[in-house]
């Protein structure tokens, strides 16, 4: 599998309930809680696009959009 490059980490703050699952299991500590207890991406440059935050988010609030794939419109 080719190495994926992050295009955007979309976090829906209205849906996030701040449970902290994504933060605990992120292998590169990209995510943190802000002062309102909502998840934010503080180090998106470290993201390795494993998408485990997206898959494990109970609020379906995270979407990892990569340069390749996702409908093919970002494909180079």
């Amino acid at each position, binding site marked *: 599998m080719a190495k994926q490059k992050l295009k955007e980490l979309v976090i829906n703050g209205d849906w996030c*309930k701040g449970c902290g699952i994504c*933060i*605990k299991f992120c292998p590169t500590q990209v995510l943190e809680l802000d002062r309102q207890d909502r998840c934010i991406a503080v180090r998106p440059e470290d993201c390795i696009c494993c998408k*485990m935050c997206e*898959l*494990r988010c*109970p*609020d*379906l609030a995270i979407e990892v959009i990569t340069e390749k794939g996702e409908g093919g419109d970002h494909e180079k």
Partner: protein
Amino acid sequence: MAIKDYLRQRFFPHIWCPGCGHGIVLSSLLHAVEELGLAKNDIVMTSGIGCSARISGYVDFHSLHTLHGRALAFATGVKLAKPALNLLVPMGDGDALAIGGNHFIHAARRNINITAIVMNNRIYGMTGGQFSPLSGCGKRATTAPFLTIDQEFDVVKLAKAAGASFVARSTTYHAKESTLYLKKAIMHKGFSVVEILSQCPTHYGRKNKEGDAPDMLELYKDTTAKLGSKALEKNPDLIPRGIFVEEERGEYCEEYDKLVDKAMGGAR
């Protein structure tokens, strides 16, 4: 299609508590549906009552929010009337095996082509944290202040014995694995059961000192092991995950069709 396109987004954020595993099950299920490329109009989701049953309100499929424990009975009716549709039946542990226990074993016995998903959080969450038939021995609940003395059901063994032709188990920590099993279960012709261990941090976790949602997920990682793995061999007390049964057997709707043909003497 993106996962969000399968949601009724107007009902979000959902009602589940922060860190509730049911949201992860919903996500895994939608990933499975998306990867299989199923059309929304070809899917019917029926659910009963409970936290877990709210799931049918969030998906943009045909959906039936029915009576407590009777989701499988309604699904059987839908499937027999429209055999071409894919039936997804997510149920909670109490919904599936206490209130709906009989529907569960008989749907398995008939081997009707339905995908049953048991979202097992070991507690009745919606009504305030009473213990369920899947809580197990020595657990604390609002109705068991001195710990439970009831043995729990093993969903996998029960489904296997009742005749389900596909049985698998996963957890919310293993979200990718859940998606894989759900995909296989949906494609399987016959009654398929996927048990997904799902954390309830509000009631079960708090009462049993299992910590918050991330801690409970960590516990799923530590207390389960893949079927056939070295870890499971060394420590049989771990909860096995994997596909336990996958076999081909006569499917109920097809058998029914054959019977109709026979009765009509080829006049159909």
